């Protein structure tokens, strides 16, 4: 289990101290794939770098299985880091070494005998699906292949934790998917805890079980992906989950109602039912539904006529439906 307790990080800058992380508290259970999502500059990289102390927090604790990393000696910390692997947006492979030697590298520094290391590296190349690239140099590989080698390298030290800082941000959507599949597969097969840093919703939806929303150095929301994404409670959360949403100009429309789908089917002919069963003509102002882990989530913003009585009927109908919540929006949502 990874626990971050009251973690703060300030950087001295020309204009004084800059607070990149402010009193962050997070608990990540073993075997989870935990997403940390936020806009650019939110402090995601700083946060993940605090977990292996590449960045030393100014305040607070980093506990791994109850052990405070901050209290370790430099040598003990290096030992510990071998169990916390990291992959990067820019892959950061050694360009003057072959792929096989790149994968051998963590074992080399840990003192694993060379023959054994090469054997293991070959197995790992199989795991990531690049058995024929052993003797190739990283410059010859595509971005996706480089990330696969980086993943193999990260696995070479038998880590308990895999930190992924924007590991797919330099890749195209198809390659991103295949890399995410690989990470998910590794998580399931080896039980490695994975922390995924990203600014993309899609990445979190694709593989994460839990998510934390980070904004300006603060953790705004945490929970399961379903909870957080189906009904983001904070401004920062909404901006991430519904990036295209702009404040509604409710011209002519009387009332606006936000319907939040929480699993089940969002394809329900809800608007039609409203018209037929309740005689209320509703218009869809905006819909944004997604399928997460096989269930439908998302929101729909509908407009209802001004008539109080009709609104009452519509609300009663909506409230009676399972798997959704309804809230009335005031004129200016944002």
């Amino acid at each position, binding site marked *: 289990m990874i626990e971050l307790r009251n973690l703060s990080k300030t950087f001295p800058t020309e204009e004084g101290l800059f607070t990149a992380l402010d009193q962050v508290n997070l608990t990540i259970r073993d075997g989870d794939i935990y997403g940390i999502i936020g806009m650019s500059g939110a402090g995601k990289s700083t946060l993940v770098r605090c977990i292996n102390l590449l960045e030393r927090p100014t305040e607070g604790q980093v506990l791994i299985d109850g052990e405070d990393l901050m209290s370790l000696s430099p040598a003990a910390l290096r030992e510990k880091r071998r169990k916390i692997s990291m992959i990067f947006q820019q892959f950061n492979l050694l*360009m*003057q*070494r072959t792929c096989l030697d790149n994968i051998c590298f963590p074992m080399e520094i840990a003192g694993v005998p060379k023959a054994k290391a090469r054997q293991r590296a070959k197995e790992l190349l199989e795991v990531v699906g690049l058995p024929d690239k052993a003797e190739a140099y990283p410059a*010859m590989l595509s971005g996706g292949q480089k990330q696969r080698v980086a993943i193999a390298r990260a696995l070479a030290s038998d880590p308990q934790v895999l930190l992924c800082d924007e590991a797919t941000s330099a890749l195209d959507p198809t390659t991103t998917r295949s890399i995410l599949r690989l990470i998910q597969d590794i998580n399931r097969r080896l039980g490695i805890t994975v922390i995924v840093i990203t600014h993309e919703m899609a990445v979190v939806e694709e593989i994460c079980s839990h998510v934390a929303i980070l904004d300006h150095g603060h953790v705004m929301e945490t929970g399961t992906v379903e909870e957080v994404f189906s009904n983001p409670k904070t401004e920062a959360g909404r901006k991430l989950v519904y990036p295209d949403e702009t404040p509604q100009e409710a011209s002519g429309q009387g009332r606006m109602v936000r319907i939040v789908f929480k699993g089940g089917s969002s394809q329900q002919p809800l608007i039609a039912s409203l018209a037929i069963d309740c005689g209320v003509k509703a218009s869809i102002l905006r819909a944004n539904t997604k399928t997460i882990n096989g269930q439908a989530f998302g929101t729909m913003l509908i407009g209802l006529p001004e008539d109080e009585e009709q609104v009452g009927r519509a609300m009663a109908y909506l409230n009676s439906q399972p798997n959704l919540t309804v809230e009335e929006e005031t004129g200016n949502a944002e």
Partner: protein
Amino acid sequence: MLNEWMQNPEVIRLLQLNSDGLLFAIWETLYVTIISTLFAYVIGLPLGVLAVVGEENGVLPLPKWLMAVMNTVINILRSVPFLILMVVVIPLSRLILQTSIGTNATIVPLIVAAFPFVARLVEASLREIDSGVIEAAQSMGCSPFQIITKVILPESRPSLISGLTTAFITILSYGAMAGAIGGGGLGSMALNLGYQRRMNIILWVSVVVLVILVQIFQSIGTRAAVRTDKRIRSQADKKKARDRHKKNVRQQRRFPGAM
């Protein structure tokens, strides 16, 4: 015609195989250059590494005062003109070698002039490394020493070879000035026979041979730098790397004065 040439006393002298001839002068020049380069790297390489890793946010931060002292010494030594330096280090040569003239004595000022130059060349090469790679190594639990020997130095190998080429041909041309303090080699041949005794053929032959030597080592260096660079994928990359190397060598060489 050829006979006439062969009768020329200057040509006869050049063709001698003993210590008066051209062959011996070439040998002396190479000997001085190789030994000086070797020692310049023995001192300059660690200094160049420390200049990079010892910085505040480097992998092995050193005390600020130590970095300041190191940089100041390097800067001062680099700004002393070589001719002056040769004279100034005479006592040092005497101390180390028991003599202050002759071929071996020219090696001492060459090393003193070249090691700060080498330190800066090495420093420039190491700074080209992507900081992400070093960070990755740190995240894997590398010690600072492992990062230096297994990441920083191997990753900058092509650039270091470029620098070595620059250092070698710079030391070669500076060594030519050593004729002034009684050292041997092509420079002394050009200066003491060619110029002072007005032996024009010897003057020109030794100058041309010096230029050819520089060209040979430059192209060996380019080849080695390009061949060992594993970032190269295609012919186009290769040409680019070759041009980059040549440009580096050209820019980093100084007009004879201080290295």
